[in-house]
């Protein structure tokens, strides 16, 4: 058991609770409708159209979260702009950050 500042965390308790919840869900599922014959539910009804092949409907990585990236397109455009892939820019970012650290850490002592 891990003591934290606000309470505790016990993975064992969590696992027991998870197993109990799983068993309850499984029992409820087992009590559901049993009248359908095997195989009867396999074919979905799509307005009379044939079901497309699995290959045709598998969403590829490039399309997942399209809405998210499109909504944040301004942010992503900026991010793409600064991720140039050019080593000169990497060095500039490093020097720029060193300058910021200098302003924050060294300069106040020099001025005062």
């Amino acid at each position, binding site marked *: *058991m*891990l*003591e*934290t*500042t*606000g309470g505790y*965390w*016990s*993975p*064992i308790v*969590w*696992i027991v609770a998870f197993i109990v919840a799983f068993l309850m869900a499984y029992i409820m599922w087992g009590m559901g409708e049993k009248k359908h014959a095997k195989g009867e539910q396999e074919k979905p009804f799509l307005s009379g159209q044939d079901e497309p*092949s*699995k*290959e045709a409907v*598998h*969403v*590829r*990585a*490039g399309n*997942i*979260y399209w809405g*998210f*990236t499109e909504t*944040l397109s301004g*942010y*992503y455009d900026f*991010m793409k702009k*600064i*991720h140039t*892939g050019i*080593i000169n*820019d*990497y*060095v500039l*970012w*490093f020097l*720029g*950050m*060193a300058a910021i*650290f*200098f302003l*924050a*850490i*060294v300069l*106040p*002592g*020099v001025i005062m």
Partner: protein
Amino acid sequence: MNVDWLLTHSPALLIAIPLLAAFLTPVIDRINKKARDAFVIIVLIIAEIIMIALAWDVFTGSAHIYTMGASNPTATIPSQAAVPIRIVLEVDGMGAFMGLISTTVSLAAGFYSLAFVKKETGQGRYYTLLLLMLVGMLGMEFTGDIFNLFVFLEVLSMASAALIAYRFYYGDAVEGAFKYCVVSSLGALMVLFAIGLLYGQYDLLNMAALAKVIEYTTLDKIALVLLIAAFAMKCGAVPMHMWTPDSYTVAPAPITAMLVAASQASLYALFRICFSLYGLTLDVTTVGIIIIALGLLSMFVGVTMALPQKDIKRLMSYHAVSQTGYMLLGVGVGLYLLGKSDFDTYGMAAMEGGIFHIINHALYKGLLFLTAGAIFYKVKTRNLNEMGGLAHSMKFTTIFFMIGALAIAGIPPFNGFASKLLIYESAYHVSPILSIIAMLVSIITLASFVKVFHSAFMGPPMENAEAGEVPKSMIIGMAILTVGIILFGLFPGWVVSNIVHPAAQALAAQAGYIGSVAGGA
């Protein structure tokens, strides 16, 4: 040779054994390839065993001090001198903690490499460099001497750069290595310049002796700026992270796992400089806020850049940046609260969270990179758009990936949850915004790995993929890290009490660090 002798000399042995083995490897490679493989694995196992024994002794006892070349290795100050002048290794709780990470990840990478690079040429050089990487990491983590910190940083950087370019027939591997070389050289030069500034003022290189007399002059502050910038860049903190996806992506998968541990060695150096070298002499509020800000930026930019990636290793590389942010946040909060009344409760908990996250990240990110390597081994592409249905044929890899993905997303009961919980709760005390951003980043992390799982493992089987699971040695490599994830997830209380807390305490207690080498703060 008895156990006491072994423990006394273990800091030196842990550097010397892989170093000697590195230069023996090409010789054995000339004689017999299988003997070379066995030799490397035996060396890595020996290093792991010695490291576990040393770490346990440190966690349950006190720091190990080793003076190189002295007749009595525990005597740090020669009779004719007032300060330590020889090279001193100081393995305290934090050093031992980091050493455990380095040896464990190297062992997993060693096993994994047996099959992964089997068809490549120049394996003798590969294993030589792999062992030199281990030497560099352990040297950085054990040294009590700031100049040797630079030396081992260079050993690590050069070995890493050469291994990133190992598959030089891919053009981007050479490009990634070149970028790594440039940023590493620049960072190392800054570190060297900072060391020069400190040495010029105090005539000292031993960190404990330096910490005893450091005054936080303007030159000390300039040295601190250079050291923070260099090590923050080397650990991949945003916005100095851009080399990370370029290099991690193109390196062989086991080397990428080791690069994660190598970046953490730089993170360790950053923390060691702030806490043990400067300690309370520095303006902890300003430096703490800088580290917290770097952490927040790294978390958010890393994860949002990971989400749209289509290259599986590039996606994981951005996640490595993001996870480094958690460590910076946790330890940054600790530094911010150092010396304040809240440190013993919230500050120490934040540091424990950040430090616990270091080892968790090494385990699950190492594992995830190995699963990415396993996928590449079979399908010969890193493009997620060209993958699918791998769960049909790669059952072990699928399970390993799921465990790694759930752990990195902080899903209970895996280890990532425990360390993130500690960070959330303690960072909330400084500002609720910190915890909210950290939790948001975890959610996006989960979303990102759901995408990888769906794209690579779900769906109809690939037609052009090589059927079947990866070779056994690769599975063993992944299994080593998986066992760690599960154990650390199931027993976080034990891990924090016995491993993480001694590490956090060693980092926070500057007087103890100084006292064990230089005799009193």
